[in-house]
Every structure is written in structure tokens, then in C-alpha cells.
């Protein structure tokens, strides 16, 4: 294939990766930014979203779009509920101690993974896309659904941004993120904010997962890669910066696709990872963080 079309394809693929990654990472970034805890179980909320999407869409007969839309609504709500309960029952009692929460969320990771294996099984199962339109370009065909994922993700990101910047809830969250004690002094129910943020963070991951299952299947071990990539995105983008998270997701998604044009696949992975690591090392505050004094 010629260079131009090849680049186009790599860019399209990169965009799809970026779109899903941005949503997942945004969830992690919220939890990370507001609650100051590292949620190792974040990838499992992603997985849970995908698995529930399969369960819901197969339970509903009729046109695949009906099942898919139902999954898109119900799966994130259920995942949010699970996260809310986990926060309520465990994290709160740990007083959000950074080290304890790491162990606790590793525990959650095991529990969620095992429950998925027991009740869902070890197979990879596909979810039918709501529509399957193949866009025929002069050089290759491309999935129309993939492009719609990019659009859906963009819309969701804009909505999140509006909620964070233009609403009272967003203000409360930002205030809590800025200074927990002061927020408390101003009568903000910090505990409820934390529970809400943890649930919303998990829901964002679940939404991303529902969007991606028609492309890649639901599998009980699918949570690990999104977790690692989300961590990277959050740190590279700069903690608590929505703009940074999105830009970092696009950067990582695109670099993964485009570097793969020039090197053998595994070497491309090595180079892409190393490049991002070096960005991190030489700009530790992230792309959009401000340098400390």
C-alpha cells in the first residue's frame, strides 16, 4: 500500500484507540485527581462494563441496535453501583490512605475478575454492533462503526467537560480536588462527593468498554491493558487536566498506530513505549501540568 493511504489507515486506527482510551483515562483521572488514590481496579470496571454489555445485549432479542443501546445505558449504571458500594464498604474505611487503597483495589481486581470468570466464563464473546456499515475507501475498507465510536467518545468528552466546568456539581468536584479540608469547611459533603466521583470514574470506563465490545470482544482478562494505558495517559497528560488527558490519549493512540508503519510490530511497541517513557522522564509534570518551582 502507498504511504498516504497507509498513514490514513494508521491515523484512523489511532483515533479509535485514542477515543476509547480518553474516556477510560478520564475516569481514572477523576478518581486520581479528586480522591488522590490509585485505583488498580479501574481496568476491571472496564471489563465489567464489557461483560455486562454482552449479557444485556444477548438477553434482548430484536435488532442488534436495541440490545446495544440498552447495554450502553444499563451496563454503566450497574458498574457505577458496584463502584459506589466498593467505595462505601471499603475505601471509605481506609480513609483513602494511598497505600492501603492500592492493596484494597488489588483485592477488588481479583474479586471482580474471579466473579467474571465464574459467571461469565473464560471465552471471548462478541457483541453485535448496532449497525455494520463498511465505508469503502479507494484503497481499503473501513468499519463505519469504528468512526461512530470516535464521534460518540468526543460527544461524551464534551459533555463531561461541560459538567465539570459549567455546573454546580463540577464546581463542587473541583473544589474538593483543590483542597479537601477547605471544601469540608465550606459545607461540601466530601464523603458523598468521593463516592460519587468513584462511581462516575467507573462508569466512564464502563461506557468506553460498551463502545469497544462490538470491535473487540468481552473477555474476563481484558482489563489490564486499558488500566496500564490509562495510567500512562493520566500522568503524561498531567494530573487533573481534562485537556491534557485527551491530548495524551490522542498522542499515545496515534503514536502507536503511526510508529507501527515504520518498524516491525514488536519493535514499534518498544519504541512507542520508550518514547512515552522519555516524555515522562524529561517532562515529569505532564504535558499540561505546570513546572514546580
Amino acid at each position: 500500500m502507498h504511504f498516504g493511504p497507509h498513514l490514513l489507515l494508521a491515523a484512523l486506527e489511532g483515533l479509535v484507540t485514542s477515543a476509547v482510551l480518553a474516556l477510560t483515562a478520564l475516569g481514572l483521572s477523576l478518581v486520581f485527581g479528586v480522591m488522590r488514590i490509585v485505583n488498580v481496579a479501574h481496568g476491571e470496571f472496564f471489563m465489567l462494563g464489557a461483560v455486562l454489555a454482552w449479557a444485556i445485549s444477548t438477553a434482548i432479542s430484536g435488532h442488534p441496535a436495541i440490545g446495544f443501546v440498552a447495554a450502553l445505558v444499563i451496563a454503566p449504571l450497574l458498574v457505577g453501583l458496584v463502584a459506589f458500594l466498593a467505595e462505601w464498604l471499603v475505601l471509605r474505611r481506609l480513609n483513602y490512605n494511598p497505600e492501603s487503597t492500592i492493596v484494597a483495589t488489588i483485592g477488588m481486581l481479583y474479586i471482580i475478575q474471579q466473579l467474571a470468570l465464574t459467571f461469565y466464563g473464560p471465552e471471548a464473546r462478541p457483541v453485535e454492533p448496532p449497525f455494520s456499515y463498511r465505508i469503502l475507501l479507494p484503497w481499503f475498507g473501513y468499519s463505519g462503526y469504528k468512526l461512530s465510536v470516535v464521534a460518540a467518545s468526543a460527544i461524551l468528552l464534551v459533555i463531561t467537560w461541560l459538567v465539570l466546568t459549567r455546573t454546580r456539581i463540577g464546581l463542587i468536584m473541583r473544589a474538593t480536588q483543590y483542597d479537601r479540608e477547605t471544601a469540608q469547611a465550606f459545607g461540601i459533603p466530601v464523603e458523598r462527593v468521593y463516592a460519587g466521583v468513584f462511581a462516575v470514574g467507573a462508569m466512564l470506563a464502563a461506557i468506553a468498554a460498551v463502545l469497544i465490545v462490538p470491535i473487540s470482544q468481552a473477555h474476563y482478562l481484558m482489563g489490564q491493558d486499558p488500566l496500564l494505558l490509562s495510567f500512562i495517559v493520566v500522568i503524561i497528560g498531567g494530573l487533573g487536566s481534562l485537556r491534557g488527558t485527551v491530548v495524551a490519549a490522542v498522542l499515545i493512540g496515534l503514536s502507536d498506530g503511526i510508529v507501527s508503519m515504520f518498524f516491525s510490530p514488536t519493535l514499534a511497541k518498544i519504541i512507542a513505549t520508550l518514547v512515552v517513557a522519555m516524555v515522562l522522564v524529561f517532562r515529569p509534570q505532564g504535558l499540561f501540568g505546570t513546572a514546580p518551582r
Partner: protein
Amino acid sequence: MRDASPAKAYALHIAVVALLFVLNFVLPDYHQGLFARIMALAVFAMGYNLLFGYVGLLSLGHAMFFSAGLYGAGLTVYHLGWGVPEAFVAGVACGALLALVIGLLALRTSGVAFMIGTMMFAQVFYLLILYFAAWTGGDQGLVIQQASRVVTVGGDALDLTDPTVRYMSALALFAVVLLITLALVRSRFGRVLVAIRENEERTKMLGYDTGANKLAAVVASGAVCAASGAAYALLFGYVGSSFASVQYSILPLLWVLLGGAATTLGPLIGTLFMYYVTDITSGFTSAYLLIVGVALILLVLFFPKGVLGSIRQRWLGWLP
């Protein structure tokens, strides 16, 4: 408090080593073998604890130091036909060298960025193992044949695959690292490391080059973890990329947090605990991960500082 009871602390550690020695003769066969593994891996946890517990640097990339030792020892035996002692030294040297390079880069960052940075370097290391599969055996790994795992000491051939020899070798490494750790944390260097964990800025203003101290800690930690990896390769005869995966970076963190960060014996207790919870529960249910998960959460709820950390806080303040 530091100087209140050094004798007590040393006595306790020597007693632990003596107990482990006696266990070799008492434990049922299978558990003798399992303990050998646990001791070898507890060294990994101790190396991790050195950096995480005492300096407060949370790395998510220590699998690379462990596997640097694993491959450093394994590949020199496999490809170059080196003897066990040389291979062990090669493994430790690989780990120390890698730790020096990674330390120089990753220590430019701190906090979560350090965590993610080390994780990414470890991922690169993991992919490199796969990329050079022609030498490393890739994900399948390589088997170090029994015949190459024999040490000749003063005319006697010690076969590392013999259960008692293996147990004692693991114990020897464990004991040496344990006592070195104990001496280290009680030393001036150890005091500086703790000071860096508590307040790096303040430590600088006492005239310490905290960067150099942290680098030294990373190298020491990397070397100890590599020693564990090298021992694992030579004692158990298998070298594979799964040891370089992110799972093996999380495990030592888990072991240390369970046993008690910044306690000398915590890593052993944490490793022991995780191994036995997995081993026992997997015997009667296939859903043992669930039980492991619940156990972790209960433990962290009721022993937030890990087993030994909580014991030290509540009852035995003198524990090192």
C-alpha cells in the same frame, strides 16, 4: 528507641533464620519445596521493600530487576555454559547495572510519575525479552538443565535440584539479605533513606545529596531483586518472560504491603501469607482468586500497616 534494643532485634532475626533452618527437616516434602521458593521470592520482596518501605519510592517496574537477574544468570548458563557462582554474580551485576541506568532516568521524577515511569521501562524490558526471542526463548522461556545446576564446592558436587541443597541455598541467600537489610536500616545510610522518605527537602538542607542516596538505594534494591531472580533461575531451572510482566511488579508491592512496609521481616511474612492463601484455597475451590481478594481487603481493613507494621505499632515498638 533506635538504640534501645539492637541485641533484641538481632536475636529475633537469628531466631527466624534458625527456625527456617530447622523447618527444612520438619516440613513435609511439598512444603519444603514451597518454602524454598518463598524464601527466594521473599528476597525479591526485601529488595523491593528497601526502596518502597525505607525510601518511600513506589516503583511498578521491579519485575525488570528480578528478570534481569533471572536472565543474567539463566542466559549465561544456557548460552555460555557458565558455572552457577559466575552466573549468579552475572545476574546480580545485570540487575545492578540496569538499576543504575533506570535510576538515573526515573529519579528525575517522583510520586506517581516515578511509579508510571518505572512501569513503562519495565514494559520495554518485557518487550525486549520477546523481541530477542532467539536468545531468550521469548514467552516460552528456556529450561536450565539439571546438569548445569551443580556447584562444586571443595571437591563436593552440590546439586541445586536436590530438595535440601535447594532449601539451604535459598535459606542462605535469604539469611544474608535479611541480615544485610537489618544492618543497613540500622546504619547511617538507612537513617538517611528514612529521612528522605519522611521529608526529602529537609534532608537536603541537612547537607545530604538526596539524589545520590536515592540512586544508591535504587541500585541496592535492583541488585537484591536481581539476586532473587538469579537464584530463582538457578534453583528452579526455568527462565521465562512471564517473570518480567507487570504482574511480577505488583506482586512484591503486595507482599511488602501485606507483611508491613519498612519492616525487615515483613516481606517474608507477606510472601508466605500470599503463597499459602493461594495454595490452600486453590485446593478446595477454583474460585480462589475471590478468596485472595477478600483476604486482601480484610487484611488492609484490619491491619492497615501490614501484619508486622501493625504489630510494631500496637505492641512491639522495637521491631526493626
